[in-house]
């Protein structure tokens, strides 16, 4: 098993290396324009040259990439090019936004996993009943609807028509890593209902579909049949055996769900004015703050890759066969 994990880790590192190359290489397309955009009026070629030199943009391609990687390893993601935050370290610009997205995505993911297990199990148990069909249809809808359309509908229905929940999140104040979590559960829970609901529903589609299939697969396994033959009630079988075994792959799928969730969070943050990584990405794209956008892309990808690896590790640890050999 360690060799498997090592290999998995190696793959992750390769993936991250490729992504760093992309985030390094993309901005090199238009260095002259970056200089002009930043330096503003009355820029002379000499000043552009000085700027390029200061930012190391006049070196050879691989020398620059080497610098870039060296900086990355020191936690240095460059400096912002947005005139509002000019020359501030990218890490400093991004820092307040990270916990917001982290908690939003994590909480939504947890809720959708729990919900999908419950729904999927009932669907698996009551296969081909009206409940199953109704849920299948709803899940299909949830799976189909793009994030922004769904958020719009929640805003229109729950926010503007029923006036139950605020339609945006006041996320400006930020005092530490756990603040967004406190904000979510203590200070302003009502503000988070709609965004979290959006993300949960979006994640639910795939998870539930998968959970249902997984339960159905498990139910026909030999040992379940044996248990049933021995006279165990079907509910008991479900909880004791099928549930645990069906849970295993859902850990993997949680990891795989991450890119989609980040994409969904990007839209959701925009819709609900939640100042997270996604919001910053859109805003920095509009202001052409390339270093910040690249850093965000890199961060989100690294988080995704880490999530996948963690899921694999979790899977390996929770696999009964592996666990048994571990304890005996």
């Amino acid at each position, binding site marked *: 098993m360690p060799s498997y994990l090592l290999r998995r880790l190696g793959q992750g590192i390769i*993936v991250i290396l490729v992504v760093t190359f992309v985030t390094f290489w993309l901005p090199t397309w238009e260095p002259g324009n970056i200089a002009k955009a930043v330096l503003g009026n009355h820029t002379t070629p000499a000043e552009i040259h000085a700027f390029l030199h200061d930012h190391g943009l006049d070196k050879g391609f691989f020398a620059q990439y080497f610098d870039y990687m060296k900086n990355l390893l020191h936690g240095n993601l460059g400096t912002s090019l947005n005139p509002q935050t000019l020359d501030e370290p990218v890490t400093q610009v991004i820092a307040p936004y990270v916990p917001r997205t982290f908690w939003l995505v994590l909480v939504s993911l947890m809720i959708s996993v729990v919900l999908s297990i419950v729904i999927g199990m009932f669907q698996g148990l009551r296969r081909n009943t009206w409940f199953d069909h109704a849920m299948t249809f709803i899940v299909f809808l949830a*799976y189909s*609807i*793009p994030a922004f359309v769904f958020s*719009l509908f929640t805003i229109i229905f729950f926010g503007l028509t029923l006036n139950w929940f605020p339609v945006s999140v006041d996320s400006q104040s930020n005092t530490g890593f756990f603040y967004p979590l406190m904000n979510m559960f203590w200070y302003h829970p009502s503000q988070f209902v709609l965004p979290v609901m959006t993300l949960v529903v979006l*994640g639910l*589609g795939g998870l539930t579909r998968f959970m249902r299939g997984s339960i159905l697969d498990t139910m026909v396994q030999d040992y379940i049949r044996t248990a049933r033959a021995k006279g165990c009630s079907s509910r008991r079988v479900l909880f004791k055996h099928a549930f645990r075994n069906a849970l295993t792959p859902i850990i993997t*799928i949680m990891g795989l769900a991450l890119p989609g969730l980040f994409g969904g969070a*990007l*839209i959701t943050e925009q819709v609900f004015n939640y100042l997270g990584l996604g919001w910053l990405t859109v805003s920095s794209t509009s202001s052409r703050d390339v270093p910040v956008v690249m850093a965000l892309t890199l961060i989100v990808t690294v988080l995704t890759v880490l999530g996948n690896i963690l899921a694999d590790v979790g899977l390996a640890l929770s696999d009964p066969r592996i666990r048994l050999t571990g304890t005996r």
Partner: protein
Amino acid sequence: MAMETPGAGGLQLNTADADKLVGAVAPTSQGPSGGEVAGSGTMLRQMLRIFMKNKLAVASVAYVISLTLFCFVGPYLYHSNQLDANASLLYTNNPPGAGFPLGADSSGFDILGRIMFAGQASLELGFLSAFIGLTIGIAYGVFAGYRGGVLDTVMMRIVDAMLSIPGLFLLLAVISVCGRSKLILILILGCTGWFGTARLLRSEALSLRDREFAQAVRAMGGSSSRIIWRHILPNTVSTMMTVATFAIADSILALTALGYLGVGIPIPQTDWGTMIQQGSVNFQIGYWWQLYPVCIVFLLLVISFNYIGDALRDAFEVRLRER
């Protein structure tokens, strides 16, 4: 690993369905069986037969076709000003009524005509960028699969890495560097949307190149390009068709998401996402007609694509089973 990634956001078809299809194909690469040069015509016919059994999918195809006609032929039957932003000024935010069956937007353009006009852009862009993406993806995938070995591994690791960047982030990253215009958006969507295709076509090519017929051709001294052009590519037609459907849907969804984020096709042209974005701002002050119609048209399209995708996948899997 045949699994479905939970979709979220406009791009949910993107990586997820590539996974599904890859998963479905995977077993064949392990156990190549048949030796005959495939009758792809028959296979297509089989797929079509299975597809046609799915009533919802057929209805969805009908919707996609009629929406396309609506967008491209509609303007010839229903005339409205979509270009003269000066003449339209007098009608800004007109509610539905005489002359404006669905009202007017905040620039005074007729919404009904606007949906057609925006749809042209969205569909054109969807098709063109899907075409670019397919071309790159097929070339990349077939090449990697056919060559195999270290090169294949390296090329596929790159694809894996690109697939692990959340789609919208990658799109925005490119836009932040390149800016945006219709042409640039087509290129961007095309160039960032081929990774799934490449992975799928690669496994197809991998399985086909070791088949007996390909080995026979090679033994007889046939060139690589001949094997690729005459034997591998024709055998992947049905795969390509399936992938193409997903690619088009992906591009349209991605474009709409971008439009909604405010980085879609710049005015005076427009796309559905931009319309929805503007409608959602004005909805709050009561201009519902700027949001609902375009939302419904677009949502039905998305749902249709999903049904078509499901049905195609079914047909595809049957084909694999029968192979």
